[in-house]
């Protein structure tokens, strides 16, 4: 009889600048789940507990990636994002398992969530080279000029990923940010970080350049204020402040005002902030929030 095989367990780490480092703080925290049909939570894994310095490193990586990603053609960005969807599809089984355990869903429900997440990614991938036509164009002006407006990415967007919807919600906040040419520092759901790491593995093995998406797992209330106050972050998506432990999103918005960040508030008001319904048609607002409009005047003669 062959001896029992020793388990090979996965170490869940951060995703910064295309690599998977441990937290510089050396900390980790236990992730629990309550699968369907079980009364008590069960231990799932240890995730890295990212610190403010990990967030800072992620911002440095994101800044380094801005030029290449924003400078890539919209068509190329679309291809790269579609490739991510392909890789997610090939990792479907792992994603389904992660979502099932993290969110405590029945297997069939988890399958549906993963399908929706991949479809959402493809939907945003398709928008990359169409957005400029929809949002930009020729402006009528009272003079002999061509006056053209075009949307441009704002730069680095800090994303507080939704706390509950660990994959569909995550994809719905990350894909719109990078589709338009921004780079992202994503603070994953505190209680349900595993799908974010699996998504990071899909990103790392597709053609997304290092630093375009960086994922930090950890305590939202600890790291979010540092991202909100960071002077080199150009915008912040506060969606994940809803239902997050120890997070006052009003304070985050105040800190973000220090360098005039663009802020996407969570749905609902005040302490009643809620997560939106991720199954609904997303619309363009998550993309348009993180865009700047560049207008060019060009003399046309008579």
């Amino acid at each position, binding site marked *: 009889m062959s001896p029992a095989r020793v388990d090979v367990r996965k170490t869940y780490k951060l995703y910064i600048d295309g690599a998977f480092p441990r937290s510089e703080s050396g900390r980790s925290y236990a992730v629990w789940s309550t699968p369907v049909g079980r009364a008590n939570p069960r231990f799932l894994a240890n995730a890295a507990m990212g610190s403010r310095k990990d967030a800072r490193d992620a911002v440095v990586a994101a*800044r380094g990636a801005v030029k290449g990603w924003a400078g890539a053609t919209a068509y190329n960005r679309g291809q790269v994002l579609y490739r991510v969807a392909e890789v997610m599809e090939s990792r479907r089984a792992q994603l389904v398992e992660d979502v099932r355990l993290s969110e405590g869903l029945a297997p069939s429900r988890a399958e549906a969530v993963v399908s929706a997440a991949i479809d959402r990614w493809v939907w945003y991938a398709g928008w990359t080279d169409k957005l400029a036509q929809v949002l930009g164009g020729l402006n009528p002006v009272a003079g002999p000029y061509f006056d053209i407006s075009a949307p441009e990415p704002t730069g680095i967007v800090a994303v507080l990923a939704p706390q509950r919807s660990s994959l569909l919600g995550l994809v719905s906040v990350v894909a719109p940010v990078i589709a338009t040419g921004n780079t992202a520092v994503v603070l994953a759901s505190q209680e349900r970080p595993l799908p974010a790491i699996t998504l990071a593995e899909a990103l790392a093995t597709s053609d997304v350049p290092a630093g375009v998406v960086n994922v930090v797992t950890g305590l939202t209330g600890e790291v979010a204020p540092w991202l909100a106050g960071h002077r080199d972050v150009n915008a912040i998506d506060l969606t994940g402040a809803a239902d997050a432990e120890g997070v006052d999103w009003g304070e985050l918005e105040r800190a973000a005002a220090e360098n005039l960040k663009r802020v996407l508030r969570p749905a609902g008001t005040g302490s009643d902030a809620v997560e939106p319904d991720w199954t609904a048609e997303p619309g363009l607002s998550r993309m348009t929030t993180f865009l700047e409009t560049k207008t060019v005047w060009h003399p046309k003669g008579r």
Partner: protein
Amino acid sequence: MSTTDAAVDVTARAGDLLGVSRLTNATLTGWLHGLPGVDQVGCEARAASLGTRSIKTTAKQWAIDAAISMIDLTTLEGADTPGKVRSLAAKALVPDPSDPATPRPAAVCVYGDMAAIARQALGDSGIHVAAVATAFPSGRASRRVKLADTTDAVAAGADEIDMVIDRGAFLSGRYLEVFEEIAEVKQACGDAHLKVIMETGELVTYDNVRRASWLSMLAGADFIKTSTGKIQPAATLPVTLIMLEAVRDWRELTAAIVGVKPAGGIRTSKDALKYLVTVNEVAGEEWLTPERFRFGASSLLNDLLLQRQKLRTGAYSGADYVTID
């Protein structure tokens, strides 16, 4: 005292130290090769362990300000223009417009032909003008040209001269030639301070770094400097450690004070802090002043300013809040 007397003094002092009546290449070689060898593994391990010290809060605040005040803000490009030198001087005068309490760097370091422009831009601010001379960075020119290069720069207003040694002569064992050249350039400097660049990246071994340090000090260097910044590797912590040991031991021997300047490749505040720790632990606290320790750097200043802003405001800063250079 005329400058010729000064050169005689250096040679006479060297003779005294070596215990010979006449300085020859053979006696110099004997003396330099009699220096204890460097334990490469031990030296690198010590440098690495000094680099692990954690410097926080008020100590970090002090260290960042000290590091800024020790910078020789440098531009040494073929494409340098008067405008670029003026903007560098302006940055030296006001490193961080958002905080007037920011200390100024020690000097602006330029090529000799830009020294006059730097001098004019810096006026009587107290910031020194350092000029590289002696056919920087290769040092491949005749003695006459090197001396003319030096006197030109001094005449143009440089009060610090960064010379390069003749590495070809050093590596082929012609130590006396190197000695004489440094002594003559020192003469040509007049009142200007002389920094001797050894280009440690081309000296190959740590033993050679130690020998070149002692040879430079023997010949009258006011500072010994690692590198031109044009050769990789440039400044490293172990090399700087060896040089700091040399200036410490030189003071024991002669009571004279010589400074140290690592240059090239020091870009982050973290690196700068490691150097300051090493200075403190090897040469001692007295070396933690711009008169005795300098950084040859350009982008380092911006990183120090970002760290300074972080400590002041409590929020991480970014490249939008310092100059592009």
